Structures are given as C-alpha cells and as structure tokens.
C-alpha cells in the first residue's frame, strides 16, 4: 500500500536506495575480503621453490610443480577436443539447420546439459572413459570428461556470436554465388570470432577451476612426477588445493592459499589475454 504522506514516501524511498546501494557494494567488499584473506595467508609461501617442488609431507618442502604441469596438460588437451567440436556444433545448429522439431530438441538438450552438476559429468567420465575405454586415471580421460563438461558453454556462446553477425553479410556472399560453407568460412566466422573466442576462454577458465569431475575419475591427490604423455597419471591445481585445504594443520592451509593465488593468477592471465585479443580483433574487423 502506498502511503498518502508524501514525506514518508520520500524517506522510505531514500532508505531503500541506501539499502540497495549497500547490498550491491557489499558484494565488491566481500570479494576484497576474500582476496585479502587468501593473499595474507599464502603470500609467504609463494616463491620459485613453491612452483618447482613436488608435493610433500613436509610443508616446507611442498610445491605445486606436478599440479601446475598437470593443469597445463589437462587444459591443452581439453581445448584441443572441445573447441573444434563446440564451434562445429554451434555452426551446424545456427547456420545449417532450419527451426524445426529436431533443432528444438537439440536446443533443449544443450541448455539442460549446461545445468547438469559437474560431479555427474565425473560419473560419466568414470564409467565411460575410465572403465569402458580403459583410459584409467590418465590426463586423456580427464580432459575428455572436461571437454564434455564445457562443450555446452562453448556451443551456446558460439551460437550467440553467430547470431550477432548481421544477415546482410550472408546475403551479400550468397548473392555473389558463394556456397554456404564459403560464406561461413570467409565472412561469418571471422566476424563472429571475437565473440566465440571470449566464450572459449570463459569455458576453459571454468575447466581450470573444476575439481569434482577430476576427483570422480580418480585423478590422484599425491603425484610426484610430471606426465610425459596423454596416458599418464596426473594431478591438477584445484585437486592439490583441495588436498591441502582438507588437512587439519595450519601450515597446509597456508600452502592451499598459496596454491589458490597461483590458480587465480592463471585465471586472471587467461582473461586478460581474452580481453586483449578481443580488443585487437574488433579493431581489425572494423
């Protein structure tokens, strides 16, 4: 009920404004607190030795070498599988099909897949890649699982980028006698590329931080070697962080914080690269 008293209404409106303002900025504040807390705990452990040592029972000797290399392996292979398939599927759905029942079904399927909890993908990886394909706890099994996990994200962002390309570009190419694939390859894809790239980097950042599916397929928590090939056992940064965080000793908690700093740095690096490339490509296309 709106009060009849005008002054009252203004006061209430002011209070509400203040409330929304405070709440919105509290999100920023908490982000600050989180980053400060992690830095405060972990910064003293962060040195070159931490990056080059293998995990150890003794906090002073422990490092993230195998986890860092494992994450690099995992992400490279995941990108190798998921990027071409994701872009291909996005292209097919956006450029090669008409709006019919089948496409509606595939659309629904993809948006549902995007909402499936990551741990369920882990079960899929465990049964199909680890057991049926007998890939065991290898980097390959991990990255195949991760690829399926981030595929919906890549497909959805590819399609959004393609939809943003004006139809006149396609019509102009068709009018000159280009086939559909020629049109897409030479005109639509380059125009949509910055958008697609942003989606890919966001998806890969998600894959870097995912832990649960890797634990499900049995990625090891203690690995004192670096994988040599896709069939080797591996560990990854978030698993190492989880391992340290779930130990009771304070020193391991601080190691976990140092690991988190490295993880956040990698994520930040990837996102800045995305912003940079996107900026350049958008300039070039104009």
């Amino acid at each position, binding site marked *: 009920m709106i009060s009849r008293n005008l002054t009252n209404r203004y006061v209430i409106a002011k209070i509400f404004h203040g409330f929304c303002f405070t709440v919105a900025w509290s999100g*920023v504040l908490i982000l600050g607190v989180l980053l400060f807390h992690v830095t405060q705990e972990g910064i003293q452990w962060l040195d070159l030795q931490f990056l080059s040592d293998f995990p150890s029972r003794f906090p002073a000797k422990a490092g993230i070498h195998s986890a860092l290399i494992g994450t690099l392996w995992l992400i490279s292979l995941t990108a190798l599988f998921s990027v071409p398939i994701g872009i291909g599927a996005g292209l*097919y759905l956006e450029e090669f099909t008409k709006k019919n029942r089948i496409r509606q079904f595939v659309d629904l399927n993809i948006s549902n897949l995007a909402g499936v909890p990551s741990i369920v993908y882990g079960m899929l990886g465990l049964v199909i890649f680890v057991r049926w394909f007998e890939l065991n706890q290898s980097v390959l099994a991990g990255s195949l699982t991760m690829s399926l996990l981030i595929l919906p994200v890549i497909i959805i962002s590819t399609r959004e980028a393609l939809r943003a390309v004006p139809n006149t570009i396609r019509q102009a190419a068709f009018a000159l006698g280009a086939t559909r694939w020629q049109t897409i390859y030479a005109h639509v894809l380059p125009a949509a590329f910055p958008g697609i790239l942003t989606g890919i980097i966001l998806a890969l950042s998600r894959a870097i931080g995912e832990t649960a599916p890797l634990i499900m397929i049995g990625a090891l928590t203690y690995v004192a070697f670096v994988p040599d090939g896709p069939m080797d056992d591996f560990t990854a940064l978030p698993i190492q962080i989880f391992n340290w965080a779930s130990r009771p000793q304070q020193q391991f908690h601080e190691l976990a914080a140092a690991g988190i700093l490295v993880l956040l740095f990698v994520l930040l690096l990837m996102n800045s690269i995305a912003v940079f490339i996107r900026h350049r490509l958008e300039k070039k296309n104009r």
Partner: protein
Amino acid sequence: MIKHSKLLLYDSPIERKMTPKWIPHNRKTRRALEEKMVRWILFTCALVSILTTVGIIVSLLTQAIPFFQEVRPWDFFSGTRWSPILIPQSFGVLPLVTGTILVVALAAGVAIPVGLATAIFLSEYAPNKMRQVVKPSLEVLAGIPTVVYGYFALTFVTPQIQNFLPDLLVFNALSAGLVMGLMIIPMVSSLSEDAMLAVPRSLREAAYALGATRMEVSLKVVVPAALSGIVAAFILGISRAIGETMLVTIAAGATPKLTFNPLESIQTMTAYIVQVSLGDTPQGGVAYQTIFAVSALLFVITLSINIFSGRLLKRFREVYE
C-alpha cells in the same frame, strides 16, 4: 583478397596432381562435395551433445539398477539412516537430502535478497561509473573456482562466526551455506538484471509521470513486469547450489545426519559422492554402487528444476514490442 577454404579447392597443377582420384576435378562438383562433407562433419559435432546426454543416463543407470535390485527403492527414499559402509548397513538417503536442503536453503536465504537488491541497484539506480566497478567485480566472483570458496568458508567464515557462536563446529552447514549464497549471488543478480533491463522504458516513464518514487517504480512496476525472469534466475541459482560439490565437501563436513540445525556438521549428496570416491571402498559392491544411485537422484532433481525454470520462462515471458 579472396579467402578459400582449403578443404577441397586447389589452384596449382601440383595440388591437382596430389588430389586423390575419387575427388572430382570439375570445380562445381567439387564444391558441392565439399559442402556435403562440411555439413556431415558439423552434424557429427552437434551429435556429440546428444551422445553426452545418452552417456550420462546410460552410465548412471548401468550402476544404479543393480543397486536397486539389492536395496528396495522404498528403503532408499524413505530411510532415515545413511550408513552404507559401516555395519549394520542402512541405505536411507533422507539424511543426505536434508543436508543438501539445509545448505541450499541457507544459500538461497542469502543469495535471493542480495541478488535481487543488487540487480535492482544495477538496473534502476546505479550511475554508469558505479556499474563499471560493481559488474566486473561480480563477474570475478562468478569466475572464482569453488575450491577457493570452500577454503574461504573453512578458514575465514567459520572462525569469524565462532567468535559469536562458540559452539559452532569446525565443519558446519552454516558457513558452507552462507558462502554458497555468496557464490550464487552473481548468477542470480545478472540473470535478474537482464530480465529487468528487458522491461521497456515506457512502463517506467508512465509510473514516474504518475508521481511514483524510484523505489515504487522498481518494486511495483519493474520487478512485477520482470517476475518470470527473476524467478527463473532464483531457480537456476538454487539448482546450481544443489549440484555444488567442493565447497560443501571442504566446509560442511562428512556426517550424514537428519537435522535442520545449521550449527552441526552434515553431509550433502555431492559431498558423499566425493567421500566415497576418495576413500577405499571396494568397487563393485553395493556400498560403491550407492554413489551412482545418489548421482542419479541428483541428476533427476537438477534436471527437473532446470526444465521447470525453462518452462516458466517460456510460458510467462512478457513480450513487449
């Protein structure tokens, strides 16, 4: 400059010689073949997403069915004691379900009001400069891996709350729930904001013309007009919270308990799955198959919630010209 797809087209005689015989030499035929091949390759890519769904269902069912042959479904769904490993075994999933509900309810209690108020602030109040700080910060929050949130809950939030509530256990539902709320705020606020931005200006202007204050416009015009989108945002946030794993594994504990007391240590469905796969439960036994039954339950719950929110969006989408 003309760009060619290099799949089948070639220009020099050498390339022509190297091309296998089955590819026609006529340019037009070649192009048609290329078109067909591309279509099939891309179709295969799209097929992967269908196969993923099939793969999820098959991999869960092949293990969950043998489980339900050993354990009566009724005992599973209505039992109040969950002790699949310790003898006497008991397979009542309710403690895991209530554990999940407890944490998710706490998270929703934080994320729904905060997310909505943030969305209102961003879409109705914030000047451009503030948006440029608040929005990217929320995006950063959304991009932080969940292990990090788990660490934050365990090493920062729990000790802080213990200052006020000394009987709080180290592992507890309260701080896991609060931090999970923090985690889904960005999702709730950005989806709600999108819904609010879709409300046409004219509606707001009409209300202002009638002398409404900005709060009245926000709460009585914009929010009701965008309600289906906002509710869908809440539901998606909740569904994400239900499937969240690492945060609750690290911070909420590993004691399946039928309780709604947030100060106690509990176990969620996801945390149980992780616990078993980290431990040394022999594969193949009923105790091991439980994780597939629990995953299947988790999958069905989140899937139905997502489908429901999709329906809601479609059915109640207000179309403004």
